[in-house]
């Protein structure tokens, strides 16, 4: 299982705050659905998978240069390899403080 989180303007654009993806031996499946057999290993591949599964409009939103990717609460780049059980988050530049 991979937990995917979206925050702030990204959450609003996708109209989704979180979702889970089931990983099986062959690749990944959307939770509760059958496996679609697409191989996902990097953050970039996860974005492509999410767009193909949910909505192609997600691709430009999640691929934008300024979108920050975090795996297990550490910032990573798009080539970071995701493992089963990981928490993957997408968010815009931070504006706290």
């Amino acid at each position, binding site marked *: 299982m991979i937990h995917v989180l979206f*925050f*702030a303007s990204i959450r609003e654009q996708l109209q989704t705050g979180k979702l889970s993806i089931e990983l099986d031996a062959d690749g990944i499946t959307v939770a509760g659905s059958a496996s679609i057999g697409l191989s996902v290993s990097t953050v970039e591949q996860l974005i492509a998978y999410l767009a193909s599964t949910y909505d192609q409009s997600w691709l430009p939103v999640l691929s934008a240069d300024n979108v920050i990717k975090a795996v297990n*609460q550490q910032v990573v780049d798009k080539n970071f390899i995701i493992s089963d059980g990981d928490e993957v*988050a997408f*968010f815009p*530049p*931070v*504006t*706290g*403080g």
Partner: protein
Amino acid sequence: MNKSLPNSAITIRVQAADFDVNAEQKNLRELTRSVGAIVSFVGLVRDINDAVSVSSMELEHYPGMTERTIKDIADKANQRWSLLGITVIHRIGALAPTDQIVLVAVSSLHRGDAFQACEYIMDFLKTNAPFWKKEKTSEGERWVDARVTDKKAEQRWHQ
């Protein structure tokens, strides 16, 4: 450099409730009777941002990662300067102009360390801790944009 500040001397809280600067400074003063300096930063909601009137704001965050990021920043400050205590409190939820948003308070023997560390922590919190502000303004709702000046403030410390 003092690299041995115990975890008990680092306090990090993310909360909806307001904070009390006196109470937090008192905690730092009670950690050790050797404290000579406390530098505090308080960030406030301004009534005007980018020339638009702000009536209120909503602060969203990434639970868990915020605390973890701030702890990492505090640890790095503690390695870089000789500190006695660090307290960081960041509020979330609905806030109005003049409300307190964030407190960074740092105690040390001598003031130079506390000044440097307090500004360092704020600069990295601003650019790394996953909080987002959404303002209600006279022109509608809007997500606050990240500032180039904040990124530059952070980058000074890498030199």
